[in-house]
């Protein structure tokens, strides 16, 4: 299991290998095509972000982050992630635990609902909250009377982010938990453990790496979300602008260095996430969902 076996590529029988291999020119051609595509659509834009951000020198690049509005956007993005990610860890754990370990009426409906945020356009997701909590919305008058601000304020941004990032943790955990079944939990119960102890000492450690993986993806999306947040935020500079929104505003003002400066920060975050994800896949491949036996 995870402690002993090093993930290795299974050697293929020679005959099969030969039969499945394309002629050399085809192989080279396909590889070049893939590399060119990757370079053009993934690596080049990434490079452009950093080149543009540094086009006026390092000092003006760094000056971007001294700007109060930029600092406010970074702070808000971090705040939203700090609230949204733990919430979705809790929701995701609850949902996947219920789905994987119990059989109940409406289980399939719940699985479908968890995927809803992936299938709905983020703009629609944002609009839903405007229609519910906005001034003309369902609860608008009530909220106004009590002086509670949701839309065009931080709570709205958090809500929209939670909605959009909802599936990440649950989707990572459900297949793994289903795969692991319930015998470990049953064993713990027969040994006299309380349900809470079973969850804490058996269920949770069994999925810890998959959970971390889900948290990474969830966090990356929470910080990078644009569509849903842009609808509910109102883009008040220094108040309700997250980093992605700030990038757009700066860009529209032809302030390329600042725009790409903030964008480079987001890109850096993506790279860190990617590195973390790769590390987890490399180190704990067998403890992640759908990746071999354990």
């Amino acid at each position, binding site marked *: *299991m*995870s*402690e*002993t*076996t090093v993930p290795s590529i299974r050697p293929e029988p020679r005959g099969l290998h030969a039969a499945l291999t394309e002629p050399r020119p085809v192989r080279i051609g396909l590889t070049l095509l893939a590399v060119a595509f990757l370079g053009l659509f993934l690596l080049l834009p990434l490079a452009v972000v950093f080149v543009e951000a540094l086009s006026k020198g390092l000092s003006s690049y760094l000056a971007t982050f001294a700007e109060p509005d930029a600092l406010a956007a970074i702070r808000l993005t971090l705040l939203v992630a700090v609230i949204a990610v733990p919430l979705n860890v809790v929701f995701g754990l609850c949902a996947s635990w219920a789905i994987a370990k119990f059989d109940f009426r409406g289980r399939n409906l719940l699985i479908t609902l968890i995927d809803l945020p992936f299938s709905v356009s983020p703009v629609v997701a944002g609009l839903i909250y405007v229609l519910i909590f906005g001034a003309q919305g369902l609860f608008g008058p009530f909220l106004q009377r009590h002086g509670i601000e949701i839309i065009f304020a931080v709570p709205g941004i958090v809500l929209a982010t939670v909605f959009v990032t909802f599936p990440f943790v649950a989707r990572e955990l459900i297949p793994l938990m289903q795969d692991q079944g319930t*015998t*470990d939990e*049953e*064993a*713990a*119960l*027969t*040994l*006299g*453990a*309380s349900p809470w*102890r079973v969850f804490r*000492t*058996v269920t949770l*450690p*069994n999925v*810890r790496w998959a959970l971390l993986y889900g948290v990474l993806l969830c966090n990356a999306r929470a910080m990078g979300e644009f569509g849903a947040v842009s609808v509910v935020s109102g883009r008040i500079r220094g108040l309700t602008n997250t980093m992605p929104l700030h990038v757009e505003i700066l860009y529209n003002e032809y302030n390329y260095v600042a725009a790409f400066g903030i964008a480079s920060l987001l890109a850096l975050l993506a790279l860190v996430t990617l590195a973390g994800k790769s590390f987890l896949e490399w180190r704990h491949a067998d403890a992640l969902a759908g990746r071999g036996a*354990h």
Partner: protein
Amino acid sequence: MTAGFAPTALSLRREAPARPVEAASAERLRQAGTSVRVDGIVKRYGGPGPAALEGVSLAIEPGELLALLGPSGSGKTTLLRVIAGLEIPDGGKVFFGSQDTTDLPVQRRGVGFVFQHYALFRHLTVFENIAYGLRSRPRAHRPKEDEIRRRVERLLELVQLPDLAKRYPGQLSGGQRQRVALARALAVEPSVLLLDEPFGALDAQVRKDLRRWLREIHRETGQTTIFVTHDQDEALELADRIAILNKGRIEQVGAPHEVQDHPASRFVMSFVGETARLTAEVAGGEVRVAGRPVIAAEPGWPQGAVDLCLRPWDLTVGQGPGTLPGTVREWRRTGRGTVAEILLDGAEAPVEVKVTDVYEPGDRVALAVGAARVFPRN
């Protein structure tokens, strides 16, 4: 609790390996076994079709080693899980001793459960796996750390894995894992030990060793033990008594020799050993196959249309009246002599009979019947 035992064991080890340790651990682990009784257990899983258990009643003596034997789908695992409290029965009662445990949650039943696929906690060491039950106790009843250590070490001795305490389950072989699983179950000093196909996932040689070893452990601990198996050899070899289940009902309960020599039904007859079956008729004090008398009917045998069941070792090649005709399918040498696979006329499947002569496939032979049983046809 264990003061005095460890040093003795260590000092004596050289001259008399392992024995004193085992004796001491046996003394420590032996406890008055609890009797278990299930009464009219009914369990249905959703959907139509027959229930998994249709009113099963069974009493297990204190300290007894009982096998639940049956084909897959017979309800044997369900019955074990009902006794453990992992399944809630739709009807009937479970008693441990005189206590009605039907509504007692699994944590408070005091059972040790061993799963077919071990169910060890993969993120915990062998030591922590075995200590898990002790650490799960309410704070007031939880043993102290050095007491836990002593008990885990003693159990590791008992299951003959004293050096593997720091390993993780993933670093052990299947047989070792199952030993750890048993030690983990024994650590909570259960009143009843329940094993669900404990050797089902192991290869033949390991299975054989572990069987013998489980028998020894049972002798040492004297624990009431129930194990589920679909392997009749395993049940016959290990158990004090065997309960044979079929389609959610108990067909027979008895000692191995009883179910083997006096099967209560055609199902038991064919499940506990190789059987040749012929349609026959009991009339006028004799059993007739295709109108010809074969053997005399014993008093108490049913009259009329019956199934005549024959064990291969009760058949010999012979001649004259009362023999059954058949065709040789195959002839071969084995380590113990020569056998012929013979399909009796009218039988569905061939049987292996010991022979002295050489045969060709297609040869016609006649078999004399030494002993037989009949069951009414249904």
